[in-house]
């Protein structure tokens, strides 16, 4: 078994990772990449369980249902595929087209009654799952939304935007609750299930590469306090921008997938849980 404090490196994709997702119970991680392949891994030690082959274009998103029976993948080959988790059958599924500003990311509402979608122009819309009409609309970001993720109880969503900020919204009212600002475009953000923390990954712009580089990559995942909107920590490790971050459902670890093709699983040390900003 690997040491709980050392990060676990998942190597199984040949191109940049586009999304990673834990299943509801947290024992599995699904990863998809531009190499047309989806992988599933044990989160406890990083061992690969299986691969879903069949798409003919880059994969951009993945999700599995609440009891880990089915896996859904979305691809640049203009199709979504539904897979049986345990076998690797491919069953094609229909895609839902959308007008106006391209939807870049979407999540379900708390009771499956609506979908919350982020758009290329920075807008966030609530679409009714029955009729498809727009129930609510907000525009707090001024550039593309790269990612939306829900809190574990589905009451909140966090957005990650190219405008270098991440924002917390109430899922039902779409009220803007908090903002987290950085100097680099944010590719992905996630809400901790147990602490008042959020994690963000990004970094399309510059990195200083000095002549004293080591094997540790310099791209960082950044942790913010959800109530104070202040950054309190960073974790280095990726050699390229981070495209996706996700908390384990128990909140004791998190994962990040990068442009460098690696997925890294980090377990938090005890200090992390005791850390408090003076208040």
């Amino acid at each position, binding site marked *: *078994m*690997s040491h709980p*404090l*050392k*990060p676990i*490196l998942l190597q199984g994709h040949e*191109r940049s990772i586009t999304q990673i997702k834990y299943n*509801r119970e*947290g024992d599995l991680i699904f990863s998809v990449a531009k190499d047309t392949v989806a992988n599933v891994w*044990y989160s406890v*030690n990083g*061992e690969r369980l299986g691969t879903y082959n069949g798409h003919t274009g880059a994969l951009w998103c993945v999700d599995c249902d*609440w*009891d880990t029976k089915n896996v859904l993948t979305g691809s640049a080959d203009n199709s979504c595929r539904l897979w049986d988790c345990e076998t690797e059958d491919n069953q094609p599924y229909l895609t839902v087209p959308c007008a106006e500003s391209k939807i870049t990311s979407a999540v379900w509402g*708390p*009771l*499956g009654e609506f979908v919350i979608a982020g758009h290329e122009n920075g807008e966030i819309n609530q679409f009714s799952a029955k009729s498809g009409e727009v129930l609510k609309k907000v525009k707090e970001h001024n550039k593309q939304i790269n990612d939306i993720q829900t809190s574990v*109880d*589905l*009451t909140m969503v966090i957005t990650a935007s190219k405008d270098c900020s991440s924002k917390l919204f*109430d899922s*039902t009212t779409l009220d803007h*609750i908090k903002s987290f600002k950085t*100097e680099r475009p944010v590719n992905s953000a996630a809400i901790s299930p147990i602490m*008042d923390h959020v994690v963000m990954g990004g970094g399309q*712009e*510059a*990195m*200083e*590469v*000095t002549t004293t*580089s*080591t*094997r*540790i*990559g310099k791209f960082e*995942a950044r942790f913010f306090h*959800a*109530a*104070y909107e202040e950054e*309190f*920590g*960073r*974790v*280095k490790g990726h*050699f*390229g921008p981070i495209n996706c971050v996700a908390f384990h*459902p128990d909140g004791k670890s998190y994962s990040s997938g990068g*442009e*460098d*093709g690696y997925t890294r699983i*980090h*377990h*938090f*040390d005890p*200090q*992390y849980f005791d850390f408090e*900003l*003076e*208040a």
Partner: protein
Amino acid sequence: MVKHLLGDLLRKAQEADGIDSVVVVDNVPQVGPERLEKLKNVIHKIPSKFGKITNEFYPRYIFLEYGAPTQALEAVKNADGYKLDKQHTFRVNVFTDFDKYMSISDEWETPEKQPFKDFGNMRHWMEDPDCRDQYSVIYESGERTAIFNNDRWTETYVRWSPKGTYLATFHQRGIALWGGEKFKQIQRFSHQGVSLIDFSPARGNQSYVVTFSPLMDTKEDPQAIIIWDILTGQKKRGFHCESSAHWPIFKWSHDGKFFARMTQDTLSIYETPSMGLLDKKSLKISGIKDFSWSPGDDIIAFWVPEDKDIPARVTLMNLFNVVDCKLHWQRQGDYLCVKVDRTPKGTQGVVTNFEIFRMREKQVPVDVCCRPLAESIIAFAWEPNGSKFAVLHGESPRINASFYHVKNNGKIELIKMFDKQQANSIFWSPQGQFMVLAGLRSMNGALAFVDTSDCTMMNMVEHYMASDVEWDPTGRYLVTSVSWWSHKVHTHTQLIHTPDRHTHTQGINSYCRVDNAYWLWTFQGRLLQKNNKDRFCQLLWRPRPATLLTQDSIKVIKKDLKKYSKIFEQKDRLSQSKASRELVDKRRSMMEDYRTYREAALQQHHEQKTARLQLRGGVDTDELDSNTDDWEEETIEFLSTKKSFPSESSPLRR
């Protein structure tokens, strides 16, 4: 004088139309009939360029009528001031102007009093209780300029006036000057397409700004260089300009009383406020190559290269076999250094000498630097307020930094030489003593902080790809920056090499563009801040006006420095803890609001529980351990693979 002619002409003109096309040429010499033909030819030549003329001659005046009013205006613009000969200079005016002047009433009307424009305290920033200096930052590729928290907009770049009173911004239509407590717009100077600007030193209330625009063909501003009075906003004088290659074209004397420019074989010195030539003539200096004003006195040094048997000369001395000459004044004008590159007879190489002129001593003695350097000089700089200078010499990668001291007895002593430096520029602190050797741009931003009181290297650091260095006016802080202007297109990938020579393989795409940012250091080379700004372009410290303290009062303050230090430290501690308290209070209230929101949300979540259970067929999935009955125990064996990575999982790195 034209009164009696007016009547006739007006009548004639009313018959023809186009009174606007008539031009009056004044100061025409009275000539006898034999020379009238010649005169007519001359007249025809110049103004006729601008259109068909029908003209009328009167003694001393010529009326020229052109085909169109535009042609008449062209004639005025170009022929006015034409020197026919020593005694006669044509004055050309549009006829309708006379009409205008004639109709000025004989009654003197007191001009309306302009309301006093109160711009407030123009030196307001100097009153900052904590004596903080300001700096301007241009970023977002020039779209935003900020001074502290004031946002202003400019199209290209900005300039501070020499004493820091004004900030000039460039726009398509001209220059705007900003200042005062709230950074209001003080003055606007209309100069279409302005691209360069220079400030004169301030002299009491007088100060000027010089603008250059390469667009010469507009009617309103036919001149390329314009000198403006800052306080009144008036255009004082316009000049032609062939090339702006060596801006500023006009060099100002130390206190702004004179300004001068050099053209082919000529040195023209003008005085303020009249803007006229000193002694009403330019100096003919055949072959003049370059000149510069003393920073302390009204003295110009210029040099002329050798010409056959006549040796090259600087006004202070004669030199032989000179290849090139560069003049470096020390800040107070106490010393002038002439860097002379010569090729000694019979050799091929270039040898560099420094000749130091000690300006404050009788008859300005000259000392030759004892070690003529046989290497090329990369940079030279005097210590401000002092008598040391630093030289960078050699060729990459063997660049050396030498420090010299000009002693009271005239001897120039080499204090120390540092070899194998990565440097191409020298930046002295404005207060002297401390300095930075910087390797900018292609040398990857190597910085060496030196204390020249004992020539020790205080710190060697790096700001990767730094393109600019700026000391603050007090010499306590240094800003290094990576400007977006210096690294416009810059994407490439790079493989990471480990110290043990292994390269990373498999699927690495790492990015290596440049972070546009400015970093703040102490004078000793300790890094204080890193500020990233999207497409950051330029940072300039706001200059300070000269100190009002006398040398004696400065001495007294220095004596009591310990007492002041204690007071300042206490102030710092208080303000820090005040900040902490403020921060803590802010956090407390943010947490309270957040908690209130979360409680309401969780309440709603709770109320929806039945709905959730229904959706999942009665399975409670609210918590991870909500339905342990459903769990199966399974023992699985894993093969552990050994892969060691340094521990990186703690996010708490600050």
